[in-house]
């Protein structure tokens, strides 16, 4: 590694990008990163430049001292060319090192934008077979320089960062039940669900699924709980007067999901359990809800479901999932 090389943004600030559930479950996203990472995050910022009138011998000395292989050429603040080691070798063959840089520099400039994805730079590299690309801002001013090595380093750092972050989270969470000693440990998560809040519909259940994966639940268990939680969450949004609470209780061998609301309550509990029965309005149906399958789905996903309701009072739905000893006790989850 070159000691003079300036830090990239990546090294200085790290990356903060939300991981999807799948990422959380299995981290394998080098290709995705090449789309996510921007050129400015991996490029070198403090670019060493030269000017057109400087003798090639001095340019060679700059390359040697800084251990680099190319120099952008700047004239009156404007980017006019690039001189590379190959150009200097050509000059050397003709004994023309005392001549100015402008005689040998290349003026067909290949640039990438600082805001481009790294994948754009990779494409340009493979098309043009160049060692370095000039990075410019929207006004075509030079802001950095990028090599294939910078890209490799940037991606490796990003992968390492993502991986570490998720590993640490998973590790901490999955040892919760081992680390805290009691006769019976229960982790309780509560989510307040607002009536009619379609904009946030599914957020709580998505968080529930993520939490279970981090706690070490296997993928199928997390998926079943996620689906049940989603249907229950949407029921609170669609059918209640004031919304309600969605609660997740996790113990090493069982998961209890429940919802509580204060109305309007269900007239006929048997009827709502029939597939296809729905009381949803036409408006809600137009969005694809109200298929009359919500509770039916929940029943399929969980091991035990209890529904209690009284018209004019409210509804309590309890869903239980029993899990084998292999998960949620600190042992590694199976994908």
């Amino acid at each position: 590694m070159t000691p003079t090389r300036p830090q990239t943004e990546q090294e200085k600030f790290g990356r903060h990008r939300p991981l999807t559930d799948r990422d959380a479950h299995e981290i394998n996203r080098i290709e995705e990163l090449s789309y996510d990472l921007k050129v400015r995050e991996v490029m070198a910022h403090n670019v060493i430049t030269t000017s057109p009138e400087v003798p090639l011998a001095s340019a060679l000395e700059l390359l040697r001292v800084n251990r680099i292989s190319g120099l952008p050429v700047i004239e009156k603040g404007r980017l006019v060319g690039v001189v590379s080691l190959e150009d200097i070798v050509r000059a050397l063959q003709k004994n023309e090192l005392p001549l100015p840089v402008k005689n040998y520099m290349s003026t067909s400039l290949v640039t990438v934008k600082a805001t481009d994805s790294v994948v754009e730079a990779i494409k340009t590299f493979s098309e043009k077979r160049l060692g370095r690309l000039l990075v410019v801002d929207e006004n075509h001013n030079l802001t950095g320089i990028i090599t294939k090595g910078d890209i490799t380093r940037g991606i490796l750092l990003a992968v390492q960062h993502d991986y570490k972050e998720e590993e640490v989270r998973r590790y901490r969470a999955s040892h919760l039940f081992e680390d805290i000693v009691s006769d019976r440990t229960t982790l309780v998560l509560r989510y307040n669900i607002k009536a009619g809040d379609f904009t946030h519909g599914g957020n709580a259940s998505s968080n529930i699924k993520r939490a279970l994966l981090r706690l070490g639940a296997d993928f199928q268990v997390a998926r079943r709980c996620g689906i049940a939680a989603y249907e229950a969450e949407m029921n609170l949004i669609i059918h209640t007067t004031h919304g309600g609470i969605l609660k997740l209780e996790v113990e090493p061998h069982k998961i209890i999901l429940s919802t509580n609301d204060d109305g309007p309550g269900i007239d006929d509990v048997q009827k709502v359990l029939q597939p296809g029965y729905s009381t949803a309005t036409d408006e809600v149906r137009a969005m694809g809800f109200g298929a009359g399958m919500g509770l039916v789905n929940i029943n399929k996903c969980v091991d035990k479901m209890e529904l209690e309701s009284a018209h004019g009072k409210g509804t309590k739905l309890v869903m239980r999932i029993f899990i084998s000893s292999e998960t949620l006790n600190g042992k590694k989850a199976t994908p």
Partner: protein
Amino acid sequence: MNLQTIIDQLQLTILTEPRDFTSITPQGGYASDLLSCVMAGAKNDNLWITLQAHLNIVAVASMLDVAAVIITENAQPDEATINKANEQGVILLSTHKFSYEICGILWEMNIR
């Protein structure tokens, strides 16, 4: 068959951020506009074909880890929906064709 090939052959418009679609291999598909049916019927890595284009499809797609959502009949999701899909890693694709046609073509392409 990878998702890039499917996008090319069906001439689908990519609504969410570009990424390497060649690394995604959809396994079969599921078509419905009723979200609860999708919850019950769609599997991991399925393509989900629907003409729903509102925000809530993202939660469903993300919960089920479907390979991608193909929105038919030119239904246009709003910006919030696309942003949320990007946030959650959900791929949204769009076409002017009917769901029926898309399913037919996919079936012929042996995405079953």
